[in-house]
């Protein structure tokens, strides 16, 4: 159902490319080598941004660092080792280490997306200033002079072990093999669990966290890999030209990375190379027929036009259009009627013990506002409990305290006696808490199967099997390959519940689960919760009274941040105080 391994297309393409490299005219081969190196740099941005969702403008910085590091390593080591591959590796590792340092500050400082972009670009520009001001001959590492604005010269080219010198065609072939190898490696990585969870983080970070994944470490991992690839590209660049200067850190150079990737399509691995080839070929052509000033203007215009009118890129959609024309007729029928799920088949399993959820006098204030004045609640294992209350009673804050979105100011939140108060959401998820938020929180651009798989993977073995069961029970097997965003609203709600339950949680928290559902869907939900209670404790926050009545579970009513009444729905209906609260009559001490 989900492809884990890439086919042979990639290796064959790379092999063919390497052979082709040997047939080009040496001068052409020399130019094309640079294009391939740029393609590798573009690939690092495709990976970090297109797949990881990390809008890092620092790829040029890692490229430059890789280049300088290769220069330093090569000048100092190649005379003794007689080959430069080890210097390439060192350079890429240095770039990765810098990425790790920067990434640590960014991801563990919980810096927002905007700041991430600005910090990475600012770092690049500060490096430009730094390297430009190292012209004094005291700025040297071993035999390598940094060289200030004029750059570092005398960097050794590619030398394979054995010390034989390569022709221009030989260099191109080696660069194609390296870049192709990296591209295949990235493609494989993206199909592996790491890559798929990364796609989940890109699509919906909160959901991924609620499924128990440590998001920050994974983003840092992706960022470091991106730094490694960019650094490798920078090292190859320095080896290609035997030279590097601070212009690699310039805004213009950094913008090229974005242009290549955007032109090729921001998720496409071959597109990264195609974009670099197309843009560089155009630049070279323009450089030949006009004066230099035209090139930045044309590149800028391309960038503007792509962002404003073709956000999916130029080359990638073209390819998709051709492919879909070829595939026509085999597509899934999108007109299938909405599915009617079968909760018993999807989630019914043997009765298992669930967990006890207790809160003891939990309090929360936002600024001067005491939203929760102390809520004490005890939900026994396998019990279903509904929490209701008028607007402003504190329901969503209470829910947020249980999920880990907020931290309590006082009181205890206990799961089987384990204190949850300050645990991050992913830790709570791993302790067996399953959370369904109010708005369907799914991965809209990933396939339905992929959505459930990401949820299942982190929670034990046999992920594939559990995915298949859940999809069958939700009657979504026929739509498993559709993007989840294409499902109807009700189906998205069911998909999300499937994602929560495939993890076999011991406690399920449902926040207004029937919002936006039809009556028929709502009654299916009542069935679902009954099935669920056999293996989990269920806490429902809800304001749809019809649903609460149908559910027939014990009700806890919150009012002004504290428990106002508890009992069956019939008891609460008979209680005049409850009606008064709902009509806004009973004002406590205001």
């Amino acid at each position, binding site marked *: 159902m989900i492809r884990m391994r890439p086919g042979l297309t990639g290796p064959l393409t790379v092999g063919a490319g390497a052979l082709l490299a040997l047939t080009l005219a040496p001068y052409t081969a020399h130019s094309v080598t640079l294009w391939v190196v740029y393609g590798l740099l573009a690939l690092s941005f495709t990976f970090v941004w297109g797949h990881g969702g990390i809008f890092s403008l620092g790829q040029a910085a890692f490229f430059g660092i890789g280049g300088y590091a290769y220069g330093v390593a090569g000048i100092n080591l190649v005379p003794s080792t007689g080959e430069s591959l080890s210097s390439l590796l060192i350079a890429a590792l240095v770039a990765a280490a810098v990425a790790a340092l920067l990434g640590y500050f960014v991801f563990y400082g919980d810096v927002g997306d905007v700041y991430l972009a600005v910090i990475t670009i600012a770092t690049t520009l500060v490096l430009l200033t730094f390297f430009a001001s190292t012209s004094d001959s005291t700025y040297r590492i071993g035999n390598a002079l940094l060289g200030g604005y004029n750059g570092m010269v005398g960097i050794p080219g590619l030398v394979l072990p054995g010390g034989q010198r390569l022709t221009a065609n030989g260099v191109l072939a080696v660069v194609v093999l390296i870049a192709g190898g990296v591209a295949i490696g990235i493609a494989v990585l993206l199909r592996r669990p790491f890559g798929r969870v990364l796609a989940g983080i890109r699509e919906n970070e909160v959901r991924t966290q609620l499924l128990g994944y440590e998001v920050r470490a994974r983003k840092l991992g992706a960022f470091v890999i991106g730094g490694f690839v960019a650094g490798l590209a920078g090292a190859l660049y320095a080896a290609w030209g035997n030279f590097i200067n601070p212009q690699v850190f310039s805004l213009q150079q950094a*913008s090229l990375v974005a242009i290549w990737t955007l032109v090729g399509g921001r998720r496409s691995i071959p597109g990264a190379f195609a974009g670099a080839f197309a843009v560089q070929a155009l630049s070279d052509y323009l450089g030949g027929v006009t004066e230099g000033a035209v090139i930045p203007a044309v590149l800028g215009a391309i960038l503007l036009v792509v962002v404003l009118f073709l956000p999916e890129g130029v080359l990638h959609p073209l390819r998709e259009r051709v492919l879909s024309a070829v595939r026509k007729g085999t597509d899934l029928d999108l007109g299938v009627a909405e599915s009617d799920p079968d909760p018993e088949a999807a989630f019914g399993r043997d009765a298992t013990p669930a967990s006890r959820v207790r809160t003891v006098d939990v309090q929360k204030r936002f600024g001067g506002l005491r939203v929760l004045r102390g809520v004490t609640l005890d939900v026994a294992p396998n019990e279903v409990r509904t929490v209701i209350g008028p607007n402003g009673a504190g329901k969503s804050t209470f829910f947020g305290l249980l999920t880990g979105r907020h931290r309590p100011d006082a009181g205890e939140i206990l799961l089987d006696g384990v204190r949850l108060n300050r645990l991050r959401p992913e830790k709570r998820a791993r302790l067996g808490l399953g959370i369904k938020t109010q708005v369907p929180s799914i991965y809209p651009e990933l396939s339905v199967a992929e959505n459930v798989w990401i949820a299942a993977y982190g929670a034990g073995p046999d992920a594939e099997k559990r995915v298949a069961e859940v999809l069958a029970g939700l009657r979504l097997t026929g739509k498993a390959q559709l993007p989840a965003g294409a499902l109807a609203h009700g189906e998205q709600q069911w998909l999300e519940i499937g994602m929560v339950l495939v993890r076999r949680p011991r406690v399920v928290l449902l926040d207004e689960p029937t919002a936006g559902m039809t009556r028929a869907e709502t009654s299916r939900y009542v069935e679902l919760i009954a099935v669920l209670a056999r293996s989990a404790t269920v806490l429902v926050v809800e304001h749809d009274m019809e649903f609460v009545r149908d559910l027939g579970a014990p009700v806890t009513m919150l009012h002004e941040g504290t428990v106002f009444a508890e009992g069956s729905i019939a008891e609460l209906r008979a209680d005049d105080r409850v009606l008064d609260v709902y009509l806004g009559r009973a004002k406590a001490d205001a």
Partner: protein
Amino acid sequence: MHFDHVVIIGTSLLYSVSLLVVAALGLALAFGMMRVVNMAHGELLMLGAYVSITLVHAGLGFWLTVPVAALAVGLLGMAVERLILRRLYGRIWATMLATWGLSLLLVGAVQFFFGTTTEGIANPLGTVKVGDYTVSAYNLVMIGAAVVMIVATYLLFHRTPFGATARAAAALPEMASALGVNVARTNMISFGVAAALAGLGGALLAPVSGVGPSFGQGYIGRAFMTVVVGGASPLLGTTSAAALLGGVNAGVSNLAGPVLGTVALLLVSMLVLRFLPTGLTGLWRRSR
């Protein structure tokens, strides 16, 4: 240490801070108010410098060219908001990449019309004697200009009806529109003001650095750092970040040379962000 020495060191610190304010204020305003990271900010500085130098060559006095540069770049900024940014609000990466494209376009255009050579504007003022030392009078003007820019921006946004409307439209655009504010038009003017500040800054910086197509690059890195370290509040953030970074940069540069000065600037920025992810503004907000 003699009094004149203290004055000289104080002036050089203040000058270093004022450069950051002059270079960064327009960027900070666009970012803080409208969440627009304007990658073309450096080129707006550059255009301000070019307007100034062109008019000086045409025979206008330097001081007269400064407001003209602000006006011209401000109008360009309004056009940019109307034609580009308006379609992209809410998508940070799109605004960044689009303004980046604009930045390249402007560099190309300037290279096409003015060539790649760097020209200078003669420093319009002489030097001032402080005890045994001399200091460039224009440096003092720069310090004064930074103060005037901060104060004028404060007055515009905190003491005029337009300012209230602009801040309201930036904070809660839906509520503002429900009160009859034409948010689209207000944003256009706000971005125009941010661009005008960049144009003004560029003209003011022209005499202290050569005017060429890469003019903006000389300032953009430090301007970005100032904004990142300053955080969301354009005035408070820019002032405090400029003071911190300018002080550190000037201090370390004096003691250990410009390279370590740059390194120190980068390190301080990283440390601030690790512990104050929302910049120095976060610190101000917290202490209130």
